[in-house]
């Protein structure tokens, strides 16, 4: 008997109260001595009191002992069914069957009794293992519409159950599906159970499509279903089966129709309360026992489901995890991640949830949603902490996500946490290697070398050791330690039987040899590399270096041949080879050949970024040959030919280079250049070649300089299209507009340039100008935003110091003294900031401290100014004066006097007004204040 079948029978019996006779009631011994009348009386009374044991004993004895007698025949006929019922009640199904069959032979038997016995006959046959006969009995019972309605539905379900029992689940399911419309309206509760059985049978039959159809069909009826938990549990099984068969869409469709555990429990609790209320309402009313009995059966089923379900662990997590897996199976990582995210937010931690947390991070990684991956990893750490069995992997993934999110610092921290907390974890070696690699990417070769060494020392068995070994050689190479690089990589090739970086190491050894200027050996190594890997992309670089080395050895023809082998598809290496070839021709004094070489470049590669360079060399060759006009002509020809194409940005470089081409002719040549530029600009404008007109106007402004340049730039402003045109031109025009007071136009133009060229090199000028405009407009926050962006993005700009001064000024103006000082201090430490700016910064810092009454700090900055930046007279004068004043406030009068004296003694500062003030203070201090020694010591 299958588990489901046994369960069904037990539940059914319990529901109809058959188990009520469990307690053993002993049969009174007097029965053996009682006569027929007493037996009948005792039996009937016991039967009426539901005491089946006594009733059975008395009535069976009566029928067996006296039933054959003529006068007792009628009584025996009447009481035979009662004995059958007693035996059923006592679960003596095998004995009951005989009594039922004998009773049913009686044509005069009461209809309701006959109805009852026919139903129980099926039960007896079923429990006796006579499944076919039982099914037939139930089938006959169901087919007869006059039978008890309640039992008919039970018979229907038992009929179907017996199909399942006999291993015909498909037949059971088809039968139920066919009968359901009849049942649904008459007995929704029985219909609900029929649906549960149908779904179970479909699953048993492996009919997943049909089972899914049941889940879809019945979803709208869940509210009315008594055994909704069983149904949903089966649906979960179906979802899992579909998932296992990689039917992801179907699995999703199924799993999406399953309620969460809380809802199921709430629903069943509400159902139980509703049934209890109905029972309470009906019970006191007459003629409702039947309904009450049914309701109690239903209530029992609901409660049992609830009890069983409340013991089920991880229902929700299992459901969500499966749903997430189905989405993952479809490659819908975002959906999967979102489900897992919600699951983690609402479910208490358990092993399933922990796996889900890891899967969530991986899904976010798949979607390249790095911040989410990082957040998920952090959440894992918060929820599962050190107990999390996947914490090392989580930390690794977090580091990877941070690295991908361009946060190398954060990545280093995550990697560092992993190796610190889990030094023996298999991930540790990989992470140490990645730490080294991150250092390499940040040009910290020393840091990289340290980490690679750690991989070798701490994880000698790891496969990452080889990677660390190779990259150690590369780190030496990046540090220009070519001898170390070569030695290490040669060692690498020896240390590993089949080195996975063999090609790369061989190439790098050749490059290092070349870099050490050991050309004969380099030639051999590079040639060997080219021969060994003729199709490798590295071959072009190798040929380029080979050419250099061959020229270095005076093997010019071979050198030319090597350059010639660099393939056009090698891009910059190809161009580099071309220009090296040109340079070689120049050094060999083959000027005509060199000129033709570059003329060919201009002709064949007009789109190259190195076009102006090629034109320059053509012009240079002409100049060497004394052909000044031809040198100039090639520039004009190229500018005219390509100048109107907005995509050829290098034309502006040609224009910028024109003053050099005209440098030899003095003022006359300059005038000639300006005239030619004006003419070209006019011709271009007339012929609607506005890009060319714009560029030549800009070129003319470069030559003009000063106010004329601004006028020129304003004249070409109408042609500027910030989207298409060279930002260097557009920015110059915008700056001219700003200088002319056209703030709004300048702002619009600058904003548009930034919009279309967010990474343009001129963005330092753009941010500075937009910041200045914002200041003029009184929008300080916006100005601070632009200046800070300048700081972040243009740290190498020559204007950085100047912009920081402005930024500090804004902070000061807004009362943010600390922020202002921080900016100023930072400026002092920044390399490349002009000395004049640093001097100004010192003065500002000194004043800032002085204004706050921190004179001791102030005097240091003032002194530092005139000691370190003595050439900036005006600033020096102010610093001396301010320092003297601060010292006086500190009552360090001797030092103040010394400062003033030093100040007035400086010849170069005599013209500044502060000198006179200082002289007056000297007089006062000398006259009024007796100077005591030891003042400096107080500093």
């Amino acid at each position, binding site marked *: 008997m299958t588990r489901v079948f046994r369960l069904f029978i037990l539940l059914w019996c319990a529901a109809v109260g058959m188990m009520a006779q469990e307690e053993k009631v002993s049969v009174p011994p007097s029965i053996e001595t009682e006569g027929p009348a007493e037996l009948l009386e005792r039996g009937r009374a016991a039967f009426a009191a539901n005491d089946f044991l006594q009733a059975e004993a008395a009535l069976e004895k009566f029928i067996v002992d006296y039933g054959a007698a003529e006068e007792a025949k009628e009584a025996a006929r009447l009481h035979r069914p009662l004995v059958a019922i007693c035996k059923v009640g006592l679960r003596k199904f095998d004995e009951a069957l005989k009594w039922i069959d004998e009773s049913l032979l009686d044509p005069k038997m009461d209809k309701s009794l006959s109805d009852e016995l026919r139903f129980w006959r099926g039960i007896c046959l079923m429990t006796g293992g006579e499944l076919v006969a039982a099914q037939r009995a139930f089938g006959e019972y169901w087919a007869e519409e006059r039978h008890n309605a309640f039992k008919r539905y039970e018979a229907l379900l038992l009929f179907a159950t017996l199909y399942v029992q006999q291993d015909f689940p498909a037949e059971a399911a088809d039968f139920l599906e066919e009968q359901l419309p009849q049942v649904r309206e008459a007995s929704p509760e029985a219909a609900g159970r029929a649906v549960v059985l149908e779904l179970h049978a479909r699953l048993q039959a492996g009919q997943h499509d049909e089972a899914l159809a049941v889940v879809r069909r019945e979803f709208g009826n869940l509210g009315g279903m008594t055994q909704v938990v069983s149904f949903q549990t089966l649906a979960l099984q179906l979802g899992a089966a579909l998932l296992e068969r990689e039917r992801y869409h179907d699995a999703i469709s199924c799993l999406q129709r399953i309620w969460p555990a809380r809802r199921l429990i709430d629903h069943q609790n509400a159902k139980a309360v509703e049934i209890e209320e109905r029972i309470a309402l009906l019970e006191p009313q007459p003629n409702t026992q039947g309904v009450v009995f049914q309701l109690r059966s239903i209530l029992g089923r609901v409660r049992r489901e609830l009890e069983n379900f409340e013991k089920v662990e991880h229902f929700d997590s299992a459901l969500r995890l499966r749903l997430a897996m189905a989405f993952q199976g479809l490659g819908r990582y975002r959906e999967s991640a*979102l*489900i897992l995210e919600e699951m983690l937010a609402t479910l208490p931690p358990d092993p399933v949830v922990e796996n889900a947390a890891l899967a969530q991070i991986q899904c976010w990684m798949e979607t390249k949603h790095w911040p*989410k991956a990082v957040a998920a990893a952090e959440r894992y750490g918060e929820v599962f902490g050190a107990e999390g069995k996947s914490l090392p992997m989580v930390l690794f993934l977090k580091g990877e996500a941070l690295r991908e999110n361009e946060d190398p610092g954060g990545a280093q921290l995550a990697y560092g946490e992993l190796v610190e907390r889990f030094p023996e974890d298999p991930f540790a070696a990989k992470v140490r290697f990645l730490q080294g690699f991150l250092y390499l990417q940040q040009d910290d070769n020393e840091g990289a070398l340290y980490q690679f060494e750690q991989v070798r020392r701490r994880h000698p068995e790891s496969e990452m050791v080889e990677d660390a070994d190779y990259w150690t050689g590369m780190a030496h190479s990046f540090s220009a330690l070519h001898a170390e690089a070569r030695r290490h990589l040669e060692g690498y090739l020896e240390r590993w039987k089949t080195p996975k970086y063999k090609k790369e190491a061989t190439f790098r050894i050749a490059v290092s040899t070349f870099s050490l200027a050991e050309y004969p050996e380099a030639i051999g190594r590079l040639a060997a590399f080219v021969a060994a890997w003729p199709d490798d992309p590295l071959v072009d670089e190798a040929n380029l270096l080979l050419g250099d080395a061959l020229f270095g050895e005076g093997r010019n023809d071979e050198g030319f041949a090597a350059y010639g082998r660099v393939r056009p598809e090698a891009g910059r290496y190809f161009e580099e080879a071309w220009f090296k070839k040109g340079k070689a021709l120049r050094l060999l004094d083959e000027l005509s050949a060199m000129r033709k070489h570059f003329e060919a470049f201009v002709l064949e590669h007009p789109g190259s970024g190195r076009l102006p360079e090629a034109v320059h060399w053509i012009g240079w060759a002409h100049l060497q040959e004394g052909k000044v006009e031809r040198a100039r002509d090639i520039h004009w020809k190229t500018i005219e030919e390509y100048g109107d194409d907005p995509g050829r940005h290098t034309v502006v470089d040609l224009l910028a280079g024109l003053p050099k081409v005209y440098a030899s002719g003095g003022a006359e040549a300059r005038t000639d250049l300006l005239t030619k530029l004006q003419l070209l600009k006019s011709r271009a404008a007339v012929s609607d070649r506005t890009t060319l007109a714009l560029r030549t106007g800009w070129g003319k402004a470069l030559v003009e300089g000063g106010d004329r340049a601004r006028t020129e730039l304003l004249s070409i402003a109408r042609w500027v299209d910030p989207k298409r045109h060279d930002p260097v031109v557009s920015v110059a025009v915008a700056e001219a507009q700003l200088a002319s007071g056209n703030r709004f136009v300048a702002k619009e133009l600058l904003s548009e340039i930034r919009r*279309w060229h967010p990474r343009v090199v001129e963005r330092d000028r753009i941010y500075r100008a937009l910041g200045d405009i914002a200041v003029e407009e009184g929008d300080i926050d916006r100005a601070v935003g632009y200046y800070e*962006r300048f700081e972040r993005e243009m740290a190498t700009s020559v204007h950085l110091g100047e912009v920081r001064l402005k930024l500090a000024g804004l902070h000061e103006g807004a009362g943010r003294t600390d922020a202002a000082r921080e900016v100023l201090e930072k400026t002092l430490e920044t390399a490349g900031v002009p000395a004049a700016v640093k001097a100004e910064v010192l003065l500002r810092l000194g004043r800032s401290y002085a204004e706050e009454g921190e004179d001791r700090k102030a005097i240091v900055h003032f002194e530092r100014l005139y000691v370190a930046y003595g050439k900036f007279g005006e600033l020096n004068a102010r610093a001396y004066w301010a320092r003297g004043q601060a010292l006086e406030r500190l009552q360090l009068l001797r030092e103040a006097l010394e400062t003033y004296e030093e100040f007035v003694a400086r010849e170069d500062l005599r013209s500044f007004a502060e000198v006179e003030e200082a002289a007056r203070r000297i007089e006062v201090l000398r006259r009024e204040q007796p100077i005591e020694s030891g003042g400096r010591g107080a500093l």
Partner: protein
Amino acid sequence: MNVFVSNVLLAFLCLPAVARDVIVLKSGESVACRLDELTDRLVNVTLSGGAEVPGGSARRTFPVDQVERIEFAFVPGEEEVFLRRATASADVLKTWWDRAVSHLHRPRSRAAAWGVAYADALLREESERGPDRALSVYDLVLARAWSPEDAAAAKQGRLRALMSKGDLATATEEARALARETEDPALLLEAEHLLAMADFQALRELEEEHPRWMEDDEVRPRRHALYHRILDQFLKPHLFHATHEEVAARGLLSAAELLLFGGERAEAKARFEDLLFLYPSTGSSVEAAKQLESLSPNPSDVP
């Protein structure tokens, strides 16, 4: 029992069913009558026909504190409009709302139903000031309606009005609270979808404003954050409320469209396919099918 009331009851219990107001007293008795005047202190009615006033009528006054409720009969023409109030015009409904508004707080009055119907019509008709006017009606009903059902309807209407006004933040917040109270996420889903749509528009504007956003280190993270947020939001009904099929399908369709906008063609195609598979009978599936067809390679292009 009050003798007067008993007599009245006896007189009217057997009256034929005609459109009459009924006053139910706190004592449990009820009186069929015509309501003449109703204040917060007194109820004046006219009793007509029956044993007490055979062939005539009698005016009676009840103190309000004795009255449990009044069941208002329909006045001529009212019932017909009331039955079709879900489709009636705002102009028509306004008349009835204006007549009923003074009874808004009275148990069993239809005033709240008229108010909700009127405000619904204002929203339905999409006039410029409609959402504002509707909002004020819903708020009034919310403040004074006697039945929780009317208050709930007004609450939902208020959310729709807020959405129409574009105040999605408030709408979402209130929808979230409403979803918690009622376990019905429909309005929350609606509000969140509208929020996501507004964000999608903001994304379009951002990309228009920054056509080279991918090169812009400051804009790129903002753009990505917005893009991912909208995508997640669009997908949520599909993932967590899939049985609200139309809403789930609409979200999935929007997600696919967003992916298409973001240049993630294969990802978009996958979502259109999901939609057709999981929500084949929804309105959104038609659009998904069209989109999928346009994304499929032209057979003539295949070598």
